[in-house]
Structure formats: structure tokens, C-alpha cells
């Protein structure tokens, strides 16, 4: 490796010519240019990403009904009220948190494993693979509003085709899928799996393609069956992607709103209203900014804790 760049006009250069490999990035042109590139993003980033974090920490310490009084500082009182479990706001908030927790616990295992099985299926060799992949992915592009309105109809207890079909094959045909529990959980979780299975499957499928074929071949020669190869070769190679999928799925499930707003319409009696639904309601309909902010903080802390826990678990499993 040469240490000096072959300069075109060495005599005119007052400073020593830089080695070729030394500067990691090219630094020619005006020093202002980089800021012109990044500036527009930074302005919006500061206003709509950084400022909100500070605003939330601040607004969660006020008693503040938007439009009535600008709100006095109350310290940790909002948090204390919520954590006490006393009063309507606190009870309803924790009811929403329980709904979110139940939905997350029920849906995440399915949303991690079913797409994995689907990805393994789509990774086999057969004709029309891309077409099947496209069909299985299709519900995802629709968005929660269409999916919610559609399944609210399909699952209608009296006139929906799901109960009609169940009746036709001799099963109970009067289940109140959208207005009772626990059937409502089956609806919310089932529809969410139907809607998003393609999304996680496609992420897995891309990662499956990176598992070295030689390893599978070697394991096969050693007499490992398909099941053994799955556990000994495929899954260890997919650890990082699995971890990524688990974390984004927990976050997505904990943010569930549209399904309960449209499919079960928060029935029966608000028993499927999620935490995010109640936060939105409190802050943006009742304008109780202080309380809604404190609720947001509590939910956010729970989510960060859950993500850290998952990462820690994967680290432990990786060490074994």
C-alpha cells in the first residue's frame, strides 16, 4: 500500500497530501453542504421526535385539561393516582393494560410461530411459489380498517358467514364472536394472525435463504432428519431474525387498536378496549392531557422493559 496519494499537482499543494485510505469520507466542496443535506430532516426530527419526548415528560406532571386551564405542576400526582388503582381513570386504564397484556400474550406466540411454519413451507421447491407467497401476503396490504370492517361482518353472530359455515358442518352456530368473551379473544387474535402472518413470514423467508445449504447437506449426510435439521441448523442460524421478529411483534401487538375498535367495537362493555385506545380516548377526546401523558409513560416503560427482557432472554439462550 502506498502511503501518499499520487497527486496530480504536488507542487501547488501547501499541505501534505493525504494518504489514500486515511480519510474515511470525502471532504471536498463547501463545509456547509452536509448540513444542507441533513438540515431539513433534523428540523422535523427535532420538532416531531425529540420534542415530544420532552413534552410528554413535562405534560405528565401537570393537571391539564386542554382548553380549560393551562395546568399547574402537580409532580408525580398523576402517576400516583394511576398507580393507586383507585378511581375511574385508574381502574379503566389498568383494565386497558390488562386487555393489551392478554392480547399480547395470546397473539405473540402465534405471530412468531405460524409465520415461521409458513416461511418453511414457502421455502420448499414447488411451482408457483411466488404466486402463493403473494396470496398469503395479500391481507397485509389492506390495512386494519378494511380488515376490521370485513371481519366484523364475517364474524357477526346472527348473519355472518363464519357462523353459517360452522352450522353447515354441524358445529355450534351461534357463538357471539364480536360481542362476548372469550370468543372475542379468538376473533381478535385470529384476525390479527390472518392479517399479518404474511408480513413476518416474508421476513423469515428472506432469512431462510441465508442459511447455508452446505450445512443442511452435511447434516443430512450425518443422518439428521428434517425435524432435527430444523432445530440444529435452521433455527440457530435464524436467531437474530427471530429476536427481531419477537421484539417488533410485541411492540405491534401492544399497540393494537383498530381490531378492537372495529371488530369487537370494544365490546362487551369496554372489555376489549386496549390501553392505547383508552390513552387516545382520555387525551384526545376528553382532553385530559396530564393523565393521558402519565398513562403513555407507564405503557412506554412497560414496553421498553419487555423489549429488554426479550433481548436478555435471547442472549441467555445464545450462551447455552
Amino acid at each position, binding site marked *: 500500500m502506498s502511503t501518499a496519494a499520487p497527486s496530480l499537482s504536488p507542487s501547488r499543494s501547501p499541505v501534505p497530501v493525504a494518504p489514500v485510505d486515511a480519510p474515511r469520507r470525502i471532504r471536498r466542496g463547501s463545509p456547509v453542504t452536509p*448540513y444542507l443535506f441533513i438540515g431539513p*430532516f433534523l428540523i422535523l426530527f427535532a420538532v*416531531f*421526535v425529540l420534542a415530544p419526548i420532552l413534552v410528554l415528560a413535562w405534560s405528565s406532571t401537570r393537571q391539564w385539561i*386542554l382548553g380549560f386551564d393551562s395546568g399547574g405542576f402537580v409532580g408525580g400526582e398523576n402517576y400516583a393516582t394511576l398507580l393507586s388503582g383507585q378511581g375511574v381513570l385508574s381502574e379503566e386504564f389498568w383494565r386497558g393494560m390488562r386487555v393489551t397484556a392478554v392480547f399480547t400474550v395470546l397473539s405473540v406466540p402465534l405471530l412468531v410461530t405460524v409465520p415461521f411454519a409458513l416461511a418453511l413451507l414457502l421455502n420448499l421447491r414447488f411451482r408457483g411459489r411466488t404466486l402463493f407467497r403473494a396470496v398469503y*401476503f395479500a391481507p397485509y396490504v*389492506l390495512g386494519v380498517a*378494511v380488515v376490521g370492517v370485513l371481519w366484523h361482518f364475517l364474524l357477526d353472530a346472527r348473519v355472518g358467514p363464519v357462523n353459517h359455515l360452522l*352450522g353447515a358442518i354441524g358445529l355450534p352456530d351461534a357463538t357471539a364472536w364480536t360481542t362476548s368473551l372469550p370468543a372475542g379473544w379468538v376473533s381478535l387474535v385470529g384476525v390479527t394472525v390472518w392479517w399479518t402472518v404474511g408480513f413476518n413470514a416474508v421476513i423469515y423467508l428472506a432469512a431462510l435463504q441465508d442459511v447455508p445449504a452446505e450445512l443442511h447437506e452435511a447434516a443430512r449426510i450425518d443422518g439428521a432428519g428434517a425435524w432435527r435439521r430444523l432445530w440444529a441448523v435452521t433455527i440457530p442460524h435464524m436467531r437474530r431474525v427471530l429476536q427481531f421478529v419477537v421484539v417488533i411483534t410485541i411492540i405491534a401487538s401492544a399497540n393494537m387498536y383498530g381490531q378492537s375498535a372495529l371488530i369487537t367495537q370494544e365490546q362487551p362493555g369496554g372489555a376489549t378496549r386496549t390501553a*392505547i385506545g383508552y390513552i387516545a380516548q382520555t387525551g384526545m377526546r376528553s382532553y385530559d392531557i396530564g393523565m393521558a401523558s402519565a398513562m403513555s409513560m407507564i405503557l412506554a416503560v412497560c414496553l421498553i422493559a419487555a423489549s429488554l427482557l426479550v433481548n436478555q432472554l435471547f442472549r441467555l439462550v445464545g450462551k447455552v
Partner: protein
Amino acid sequence: MTAVLPPRRRPRLRRIGLWVLLIGLTCVFALPLLYMLATAFKTPAESVSADFRLWPQDPTLGAFRQILGDDSVPVLRWVGNSLLVAVAHCALTVVLAVLAAYALARMEFRGRRLMMGVILATMFVPAVVMLIPHFLIVNSLGWLNSYAALIIPGAAGAFGVFFLRQFFAAIPRELEEAAIVDGCTQWSTFARIMLPLARPAVATLVVLSFLASWNDYLWPVFVLFSSDMQTLPSGLRLLQAENSTRYDVMMAGAVIASAPVLALYVIAQRWIIEGVSTSGIKG
């Protein structure tokens, strides 16, 4: 030989099992969508009858007429709103992210590492943190019930910048140097050499941000008040409230709301799926 090396060719029975599974799954994913389409063309009575028909007995445009004739649910206006908002949001997101990602990946300037660290750190902040503050900021800017409330607040996310930065960083620097030797300015190196090379990644971000905006539900429900400002997703809620027993009308609304993205999906299916699959690859 076969005792040592199992045969590569799969037994016939397993092939049949595979195809049964593939076709069964196709029904699970496609039938609900086809039933939505069929119901939109049924009469109110047939839409709630117990016969499971994928082809309406007397196909009718009644449900569509009912929607288009009802001024309290201006669905065509919602189509326009959704298109305007999704296109503008997508354009803003992508332009900002491309410029910022290029600077972070390819330029040397004071504060670069700090900016990278801060932007990366915000990727771990749960979205719920933004909800109430965005409402307060949008309110104090006077943007409630406006397009700006839907287009701007979500446009400066960390994901796009990080996603594109990896691609810009992976482009060999010889290309950049050759461009500069040939007399390109920083801008023309970016616009004429680097940007075209990052086209697949940019296309992915276009698709993802368009879909995210088109399908967004919670935010428009809470920041839009008048019926003529709704997007299709938030408008469907009004349609559901007005026609809670008219499933033919609701399905017609769902068909109108999904037709544009499904059409886009049929054209750009491969591309959309590839976009999603690469979004999972974290550098």
C-alpha cells in the same frame, strides 16, 4: 446407496399433501376477500342470508349507489384525501430520509456521530410516547382537522434514515472518487451517481411509507373531525356507524377502500414483498 443418502426426490404422497396444504391456505387467505367483493354486489337481503355464495344471485350496484348518494359519507372525497395524504407523506419522508442518510453515510462533518447516536436511540422509543405530544403540537400549530396533521408529524422517523444509510455506506468509494475526478460537485455526485445506485432501497422506502400512511387508522380517527376531511380508513368507521345493519354497504365501502392498494399490489406485488422482507434485515 439409499440407506446412506436418502433420496432427494420426495415421495408422491408428500407432494399431494403439500398441494392440499397450499390450496387450503389459499382459501383461508383469499376467500374472505372474495366474499367481501361478492357481498358488495348483493342485495341487502342476500348479503345477510345463510347461503354462502361467492357469486351474487342478482348482482346489483345498489350498495355503491347508496354510498355515493349519501352526502354524509363522501367516499370519493375520502379516496382523494387518502391519495393526497399518502403521496405527500411518502414524498416528504423519502426526500428527507435520502438526503439525511446520504450525509450521514458519505460526508464528514462536525456532529455527525452525535446525530447518528441520537437518531439511533429514538428507534427504541415506543410509538405511544409520540401520541399525546403530537396531538398537542398539531393543536398548537392549528393543524387539527387538516392534511398537514396527517402528512408531517410522522415524516422524520429514524427508520428510513437508518435503512437507507446502510445502502449508501455499502457503495464502493471508488465510484465516488471517480465522479469527483471527473469534476462532479458534491450535489451531482449524489444526484447522478449515488442516488441511482440506491434506487432499490429508495423504492422500498417509498412502498413502505406509502402503505403505512394509506392504512393509518388511529391517528386520523382522532385528529380529523369533519366528514369531508376523513381518509378512507377513518371514513370507514363513519360508514360503519351509519349503516351498522347494511353489510352490503359496508362491504362496498371496504371494496372502494381496498381497490387502489390491491391494484397497486397486483402490479407491484413482487416489489412490495421484497421491500418488506429487506426491511427486516437490520445492519
